């Protein structure tokens, strides 16, 4: 099946016709709603919270977030803020008079909220779009890092985020989850029905500092098919000291650190970290 994100930018793909088709399809409604409930079960909310919905579209998830606990929404009713890059999708949400607040924004440009705003974040079937850079000025890596850095800062300590997405291949899966880890999240990938055409990938993210202290292992403990990509594991690896200062590995890590801090770093090349010949 062809992937829409390989052919058009999201705001053009989700035009009035496609947004209408999308929202009125009972098959789509059913799938999006079951994924929203799955994400909610991973968020473990116990009381009314402030939630960010990234790529909220026409508000299919939002309608569930606004429901009360007795209607089946854990910890509900929640208050949510949703943003999307498609004005047609948001137009349908307005017509439906959803209760959440809506914004027109591009996740690849960041998350413009002050630090510690949200109790949780959810994103259903949206962030694979970030892997396709729309213009030549942008790189997918840059868009992913702006998104995850912004999301990380906008969540309060101890918060969780769950992003269900459709990775194109293993490489894209790794690209997305490592961008999240680099932003500071504890991250785990959960797969439902792996290997089938109904496979669903959930990126479960935690922000350290609260009860969880970024420990993803507690969240996904006992769940089948969960791959834990804990940042702390990387730190431990590093301590073993096989990495010497000035080595290629060391330079690459330093460059990554600088980039994360927003510094401009020279692109890596086959010469990076090589010994220079002594010049006379």
């Amino acid at each position, binding site marked *: 099946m062809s992937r829409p994100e390989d052919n058009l930018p999201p705001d053009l793909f989700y035009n009035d016709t496609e947004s209408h088709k999308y929202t009125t399809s009972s098959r789509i409604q059913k799938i999006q709603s079951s994924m929203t409930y799955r994400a909610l079960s991973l968020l473990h909310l116990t009381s009314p919270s*402030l939630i960010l919905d990234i790529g909220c579209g026409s508000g299919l998830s939002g309608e569930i977030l606004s429901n009360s606990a007795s209607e089946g929404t854990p910890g509900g*009713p*929640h208050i949510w*803020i949703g943003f999307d890059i498609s004005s047609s999708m948001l137009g349908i949400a*307005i017509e439906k008079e959803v209760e959440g*607040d809506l*914004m027109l924004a591009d996740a690849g*440009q960041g998350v*413009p909220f*002050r630090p510690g705003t949200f109790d949780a974040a959810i994103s259903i079937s949206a962030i694979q779009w970030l892997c396709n850079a729309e213009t030549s000025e942008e790189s997918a890596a840059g868009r992913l890092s702006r998104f995850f850095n912004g999301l990380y800062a906008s969540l309060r300590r101890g918060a969780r985020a769950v992003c269900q997405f459709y990775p194109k291949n293993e490489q894209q899966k790794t690209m997305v989850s490592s961008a999240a880890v680099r932003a500071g999240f504890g991250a785990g990938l959960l797969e439902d029905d792996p290997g089938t055409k109904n496979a669903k990938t959930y990126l479960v993210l935690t922000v350290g500092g609260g009860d969880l202290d970024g420990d993803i292992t507690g969240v996904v403990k006992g769940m089948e098919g969960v791959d834990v990509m804990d940042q702390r594991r990387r730190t431990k690896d590093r301590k073993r000291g096989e990495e010497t200062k000035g080595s290629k590995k060391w330079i690459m890590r330093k460059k990554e650190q600088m980039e994360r801090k927003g510094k401009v770093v020279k692109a890596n090349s086959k010469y990076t970290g090589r010994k220079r010949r002594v010049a006379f």
Partner: protein
Amino acid sequence: MKLLTLNFLTCAVKTCKTSASSFPLHPRDSELEIVEAEINVQFLQNILPRLMWEELGGLVNELGLPSLPPTAPLPSALVESKLQAPESDTTGLNIEKLEVPSQVARDLHRVLLETCIMSGGLVCGNCGHEYKVLEGVANFLLPAHLV
């Protein structure tokens, strides 16, 4: 856009991230509307410590709405107990002590969750960038050179 959201939104321009004056955004030529919503006291209690009260007061003044008290209420001030029979009791004789939203909670709910900016602009105090609001939706898309 609810005033709640405005109490958390900052300017999205890259060079504004480190500037204190990129929060709060200032409304310009705004058209307000009250959109009724069910009161959620537990949510209000949850969000109260995270509000920037002074900035909320400033916003309310900029919009020409009645001023807020100078300091934020305590979460405990959002409920009050009332002696009344529960709705299920048709005799009205089984009087109980019930926790109900206080006037303070209802006022806060009105300001944060029911008062909406339907159109106008939101202006950054640092760079002057104006984010347009149309049909209650703010446009935060930036030209590439500002990202």
